[in-house]
């Protein structure tokens, strides 16, 4: 499993940052998340989260909203 630190702007749908951490670095990923969350405290539109996934590709499937616009999402089923 890998850990992905995601910094996402909800107001624009922009994925600002995606950093991958190895399984051994899980605690570091979570510390980094807290640091970023504190830094973005005045910006509630910025979402900071650590997601767990076997790969980026799998993550793009289970958490597609960080990666695809509504138009791209609907297109996947057409």
């Amino acid at each position, binding site marked *: 499993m890998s850990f992905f630190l995601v910094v996402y702007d909800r107001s*624009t749908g922009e994925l600002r940052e995606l950093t991958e951490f190895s399984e051994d670095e899980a605690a570091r990923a979570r510390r980094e998340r807290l640091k970023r969350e504190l830094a973005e405290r005045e910006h509630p539109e910025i979402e900071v989260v650590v997601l767990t996934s076997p790969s980026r590709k799998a993550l793009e499937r*289970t958490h597609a909203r960080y990666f695809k616009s*509504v138009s791209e999402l609907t297109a996947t089923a057409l």
Partner: protein
Amino acid sequence: MTQLSNRQLDRLGDRLRISDPTAEDLELLGQVGELYAGALDEVTRVLADLDLEPGGRPKTVGTLVDKLRRMPELPLSKMQDIAGARVVAEMTREEQDRLVERITARFDSYRVKDRRIEPSFGYRAVHIIVRVQGRPVEIQVRTRLQDLWAQIVERLADAWGRQIRYGEPPSEPDLRLRELTRQQFVDGLMQLSSAVDEVERAKVLLAELDRLDEELRARGEEPELDEEMAAVRAQLEGRERRLRATLERLHGASTRGTLAP
């Protein structure tokens, strides 16, 4: 790290209901995340062991505060989805049922919430709340179409307000995106949810008839189910056409740039 008591958790929850998190609250929320991290990691490992490709996440500060304010009676220590994992697969509802059985067989303590039978404002999936290391973790099991619907709503909720997830109108409901207003788009999403449900249920019915047909033939009987099967196939085709038409309408209105997200 000091272990947070349930009482401390609930006090933190009460504070977050009425005011924005302070730096100290965010530190405490970091500790809350740590409390659930071990349980979440164990759950994602079990799911990976089943040859699944799960995604896992702790609730973000925003969604946690949102839920606390939406559910003022819910103590933070009792919240079931602070940590969650998700599995998405191309599968029928019967396969979804079997996958849920495979997952629950790996846990001693669990509860299943079938949101296909009791959808939440159009949201459909099966949720399993397992208890691991003394903490609840919610596992969402979704078919590809159930997930597609949920991802679209989540994405829109970011820009049009999270209230759309609970049946409330979007912000600026009359704002037009090509041929649809935001409100019409949200209404279209509810139609999409029903269309997905209808297609998935028709597939279940067809599979049941197929099985019955095979069983009867194996016993040397003439099933005489051709008419029923043809009717269900025609029904399924009609429902698939409606689903596609709804998707095309939403896709046409959502060209990047016209919808903020």
